[in-house]
């Protein structure tokens, strides 16, 4: 049990500093501990303490996980007696089921049930809260990092991932011009998220297209793969060759900001886009494997607390099947058209250069591209891959813990 070992060894080697601690039973089932007479006391539910006993019978040290037998767990268990060990800085609880538990003060402090402490834990460690931005502020919020530093320096890696979590976009510069870059970036964090289209993908217009203006069509704002329940979380787009023509600019917009505006300025449209379920789809085949993906979800997805969890938008990948009552259709189109107009108004355009790696949150941002001339002398070559948020947040937590040790 590393937590306890740590606590004791501090007492053994560091100068003796035993803060006075006290503990008592409150309200029959809860335990209150206080570190010094003037500090605020911490209250813990007895049933939670018993469930999280750290002894070898109840907790498996090497996997850091609970092994308490819940088939026999009695939620009526209550503390009979509490005392403290100031040398070890521990609170000791004797239970009605004849068990005894020792809890280090540091461990208890980190798990305080005080609202501010919980909010701080969630914001600092679980998932940093996102900050939404209008297109006009793009230059101020978009942070640049050096590719080499991200690959070599854990602190820069952490800064990049933190910026990505908070603002949903960040740019790496100075990457070499080889096709292995996106994989190396992804593996610096964890591993590539595979999709129906494989692990890495190439964005390149077919050279010498015989259409009327040799133009590669503009790609309107969209999210990638809205037709997946598990939509890929973060796009990594590595620019190897950029067109010399005036077009080929990237467009990015924070759709959570667009949703904020709708919520304020057009509440009925907002409500409709959060409620009406849309069919997103993709039909095709890749490497001989046919697919027919469908995911049904609103354009703006909210959690139970009304916070945004995801935005879906793609004109080509919205199914012609629309499984809503007839009378919902016209008004939904009006609301959706408003969303698209606002997104276009809030979009920021910029052009990546060879060696740039653009990374952005595909759950939250819409991206697109202006049209460009594509001839043999004037091409554009981008290699892309995805990472999932589960993997990114995990990496961010590991980096933060290491820094704080």
């Amino acid at each position: 049990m590393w937590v306890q070992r740590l606590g004791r060894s501090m007492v053994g080697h560091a100068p003796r500093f035993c803060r006075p601690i006290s503990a008592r039973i409150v309200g029959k089932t809860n335990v209150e501990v206080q570190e010094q007479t003037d500090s605020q006391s911490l209250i813990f539910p007895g049933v939670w303490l018993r469930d999280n006993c750290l002894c070898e019978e109840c907790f498996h040290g090497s996997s850091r996980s609970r092994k308490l037998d819940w088939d026999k767990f009695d939620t009526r268990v209550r503390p009979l007696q509490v005392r403290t060990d100031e040398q070890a800085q521990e609170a000791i609880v004797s239970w009605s089921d004849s068990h005894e538990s020792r809890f280090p003060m540091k461990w208890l402090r980190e798990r305080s049930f005080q609202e501010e402490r919980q909010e701080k834990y969630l914001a600092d460690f679980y998932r940093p809260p996102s900050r939404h931005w209008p297109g006009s502020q793009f230059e101020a919020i978009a942070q640049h990092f050096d590719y080499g530093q991200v690959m070599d320096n854990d602190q820069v890696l952490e800064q990049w991932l933190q910026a990505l979590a908070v603002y949903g976009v960040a740019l790496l510069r100075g990457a070499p011009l080889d096709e292995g870059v996106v994989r190396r970036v992804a593996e610096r964090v964890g591993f590539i998220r595979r999709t129906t289209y494989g692990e890495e993908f190439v964005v390149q217009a077919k050279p010498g297209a015989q259409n009327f203006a040799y133009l590669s069509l503009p790609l309107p704002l969209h999210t990638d793969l809205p037709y997946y329940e598990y939509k890929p979380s973060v796009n990594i787009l590595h620019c190897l060759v950029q067109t010399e023509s005036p077009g080929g600019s990237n467009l990015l917009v924070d759709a959570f900001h667009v949703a904020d505006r709708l919520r304020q300025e057009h509440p009925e449209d907002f409500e409709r886009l959060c409620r009406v379920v849309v069919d997103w789809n993709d039909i095709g085949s890749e490497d001989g494997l046919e697919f027919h993906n469908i995911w049904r979800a609103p354009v703006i997805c909210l959690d139970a607390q009304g916070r945004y969890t995801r935005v879906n938008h793609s004109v080509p990948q919205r199914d012609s099947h629309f499984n809503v009552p007839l009378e919902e259709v016209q008004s939904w189109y009006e609301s959706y058209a408003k969303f698209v107009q606002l997104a276009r108004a809030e979009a920021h355009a910029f052009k990546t250069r060879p060696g740039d790696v653009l990374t952005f949150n595909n759950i939250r941002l819409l991206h697109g591209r202006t049209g460009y001339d594509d001839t043999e002398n004037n091409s554009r070559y981008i290699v892309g891959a995805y990472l999932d948020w589960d993997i990114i947040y995990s990496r961010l937590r590991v980096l933060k813990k290491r820094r704080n040790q």
Partner: protein
Amino acid sequence: MFQADRREFPSLASQLEVHPEEQDHPRLVEVPDPTRQDMQFPDIWLRDNCLCQDCFMPQTLSRLPQLWNNLDTSVRVLRQEVDVEQQVLYIEWSDGHFSQYPYSWLRERDFSKANRERYLSDFYRPEQQLWSGRDFEQIRRVFNYQELLTDDYELQKWLHQLAVFGVALVKEAPLQMDVLRHLCNRVGFMRRTTYGDEFSVRAQPGASNYAYLAAPLPLHTDMPYFEYLPGVTLLHTLEQSASPGGVNLLTDAFYVADILRERYPEQFRVLSQTPVDWADIGRDGDLQFHNIWRAPVINLDAEGRCVRINHSIPQRDSHFSVPLEHVRPWYEAMATFVRLAQEHSCSFKTTPGDVLTFNNLRLVHGRTGYDDTDRNVRHILGAFIDWDIVYSRLRVLRQANVLPQLTHP
């Protein structure tokens, strides 16, 4: 018929205004169908889904986006004609565009409630049927490994069984390490996790603990600490313990949730509304991880249907980020859930060559303890596939296999 409102095209600014009078009177196109009930379609939806080459790209089977750069939601039908012989609807639009729609295409997309329900339960995702452990023998289905690899209809039946009941058993797989990869590639591809593509479940041989027992593994879902919880678990038995233990336990936790909803509504509310911190801290190879996902035990969609269960005693974090007064009610509700999950579990023991496959969002699974000695080992290989991939494959098979729709027992 549609309303023939021929006002001026609105400017961009007026498009951003709300027109309540339009929303109150959706403009509908009525399409007579001699073979069945007449169909109705909103005009804006028809315009949005025009199938001509300017609006739709047949190679990608998807809408071309240009119209949406400045979508005119007030677009009107100027003229409508029906060719009953050819079964085609023709429309001339107020924006100067012409569209035609085959009847077969329209029927497939009819907005009537019956048609929408048919589409969703036949094609989108088959409707689930929940079960108690005591009915396991009735819902249990066995598939042959070789047939799954070669016969598309068998493959379809397996995936359909998994979608509807959440569990299916594959038999007679060779005792080789690549069985799960073959099965997954037959569906699509494996879902990778922090533990890699495939994982191995085996007690350390000759463990010198007091009873040489591989401890029982209580009912749980795999990896609740991921927002993207792996969808389907596949467990291939290579070696099975000859001891009395090592028995698989399975419970349909959606069934348990329904019982809670009915009999213990307050506890159901608590378990579906109290976010729990699920965590996994460790390393696999060079990769250190600290996974956390905060979500209730019972997860509901906007319509109140169960979409996911999270449950794992070892992987529930000691951090519990809820107000103090929510803690005790949650523990009491959870104890009820655990008790009911045991009551409604079924048990069976896989034999070498079996591949047990089940829905990890819906079922909880476990294992009884067993003697593990050098002569008495148990070795299971595991892998995951995600539901996005499984449902996609099922739809492709359903369209390709011109066989009668699968019916449930």
